[in-house]
């Protein structure tokens, strides 16, 4: 450190015109012999990787064409040609081909809803109405059967829109469930408390895959004769229940981190339990746990791909199915790479957004 500063100052004295960037590099990467050696080795490795990656992903890659062309460069270049060929199947899976504009439009409505809700100035009484309207439109588009749209049974839905449906409802409903569970676990009423503890520990203690399995195989056994819940709904319930149990512990962490004095002040002012919870406790407790909460949301988003085991075609499984076409067999890694990028975009957006919102909400705390 001391060396670094000396180098900067020496540099400044010798070359007063040196730019900020050069100064930074000199101070942080080449401040001593050891640092310099380390920097050079890392730069070499990074360069080598980039060189290989550009060769594989750009120069040697096949961007367009038949599977046979891809086979020729297998191992040397990526096969992006699979995307122009298969993108409709990856994005919309088995949804009737000529009607695929409907899930496409549904995805756009989802994007609009996300963007609309992301802006704090829209956080008012209109927001629920906008969501209800948006979700109704999506339901009409996806199912059809009215307005001259052909009916499409849920079994044929798939691709991106399925991932978005599962994770949007998953997050939107797991969140209130988690809050109730966390409050219940801290309740003074023994019955409620033990119910919540048992639920959380039980659900958290088993893999999501087994929950999905149970939801799809065992759930129908408990339902009265004649009532059937479709597969998607069963998967959705399993995901909500699972994420809710995880998130409940995150929320409880926030409730516990809040000083006792906040509860006492609310009580002393005569606020009822629900008033205090809604206006004093939750706003502070949730703010404290934004990072682990978003962590859970991101986990949930990616876990939706586990619905594969009960035969639902979300975007990842659609991609997998796409390359099971004999012509394209063996190009799994290339397809997964592309689909991973889509996942990454969503997760990164969530992460960035949570950082921003955390910053905004904590403005009141600047001390």
């Amino acid at each position, binding site marked *: 450190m001391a060396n670094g500063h000396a180098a900067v100052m020496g540099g400044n004295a010798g070359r007063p015109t040196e730019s900020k960037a050069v100064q930074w590099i000199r101070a942080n990467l080449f401040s001593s012999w050891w640092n310099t050696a380390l920097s050079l080795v890392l730069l070499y490795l990074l360069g080598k990787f980039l060189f290989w990656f550009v060769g594989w992903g750009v120069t040697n890659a096949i961007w367009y064409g038949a599977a046979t062309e891809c086979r020729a460069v297998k191992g040397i270049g990526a096969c992006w040609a699979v995307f122009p060929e298969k993108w409709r199947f990856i994005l919309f899976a088995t949804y009737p081909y000529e009607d695929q504009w409907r899930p496409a439009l549904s995805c756009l409505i989802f994007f609009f809803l996300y963007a609309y809700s992301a802006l704090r100035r829209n956080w008012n009484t209109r927001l629920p109405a906008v969501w209800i309207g948006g979700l109704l439109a999506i339901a009409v588009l996806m199912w059809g059967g009215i307005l001259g749209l052909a009916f499409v049974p849920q079994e044929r839905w798939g691709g991106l829109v399925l991932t978005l449906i599962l994770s949007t409802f998953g997050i939107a409903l797991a969140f209130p469930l988690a809050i109730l569970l966390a409050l219940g676990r801290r309740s003074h009423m023994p019955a409620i408390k033990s119910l919540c503890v048992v639920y959380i520990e039980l659900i958290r203690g088993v893999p999501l895959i087994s929950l999905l399995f149970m939801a799809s195989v065992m759930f129908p056994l408990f339902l009265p004769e004649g009532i059937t819940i479709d597969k998607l709904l069963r998967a959705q319930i399993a995901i909500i229940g699972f994420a809710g149990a995880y998130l409940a512990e995150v929320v409880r962490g926030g409730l516990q981190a809040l000083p006792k004095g906040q509860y006492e002040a609310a009580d*002393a*002012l*005569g*606020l009822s339990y629900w008033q205090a919870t809604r206006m004093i406790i939750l706003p502070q407790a949730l703010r404290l746990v934004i990072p682990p909460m978003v962590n859970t949301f991101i986990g949930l988003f990616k876990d939706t791909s586990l619905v594969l085991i009960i035969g639902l075609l979300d975007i990842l499984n659609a991609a997998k199915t796409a390359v099971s076409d004999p012509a394209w067999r063996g190009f799994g890694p290339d397809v997964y790479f592309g689909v991973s990028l889509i996942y990454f975009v969503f997760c990164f957006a969530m992460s960035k957004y949570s950082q921003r919102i955390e910053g905004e909400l904590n403005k009141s705390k600047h001390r």
Partner: protein
Amino acid sequence: MSAVKAAQTTEAPMIELKKLNKWYGEFHVLKNIDFECRKGQKIVVCGPSGSGKSTMIRCINRLEEHQTGDLIVDGIELTNDIKNIEAIRREVGMVFQHFNLFPHLTVLENLTLAPIWVRKVPKKEAEETAMHFLKRVRIPEQANKYPGQLSGGQQQRVAIARSLCMKPKIMLFDEPTSALDPEMVKEVLDTMIELAREGMTMICVTHEMGFAKAVADKVVFMDKGEIVEANEPEPFFSNPQNERTKLFLSQILNH
């Protein structure tokens, strides 16, 4: 002065504790407490650390639960009935050692929250009342700041104003100045003295003996969960009866 006091004694007490007992597990914190506070009275409670002062006044608004004995506040008997508890909390204001302001709300929101939601006062009226009390505690200019942006003394005055906005009949203070830097103690005590002069019924746990001498009608000394001695301030300080009181007073007055 004495005529006023005589007139007051004919009324029923605002707060009445009869043979009150409380345990924390095995530990007997409050032992057969008999205590009363009449309308307009200012009572100072003092005693060594751990003697149960906080516990006693926190029983009065049910932040702590007593096990045996009776506790009657403003004619309402405190039981497990949630309706009674909420009714009493509306009438009893409390100021804490560590202020306990709501950090995510502005000063004005801190002051208007309970009147709007508990007393169902219209927002505009609640804000007017809030500004009135902020002026009384001399910080109207801080209305739109967040608690974290204020000094300790200012925060405690906001906390006092927050309680006053509920128009309570009784104010409880639990060591309101002991978390403050010395130079801020006076501004808070001045606010409390002013409040006392206006006739508020007050019970105040404090070691500020100057405050006790200035405004108290009665000083209560507690030790090991018992009320050892209670008297008017002048005889209490000049002529304490109990050995424990004498020891305590010599310790806090000579430091």
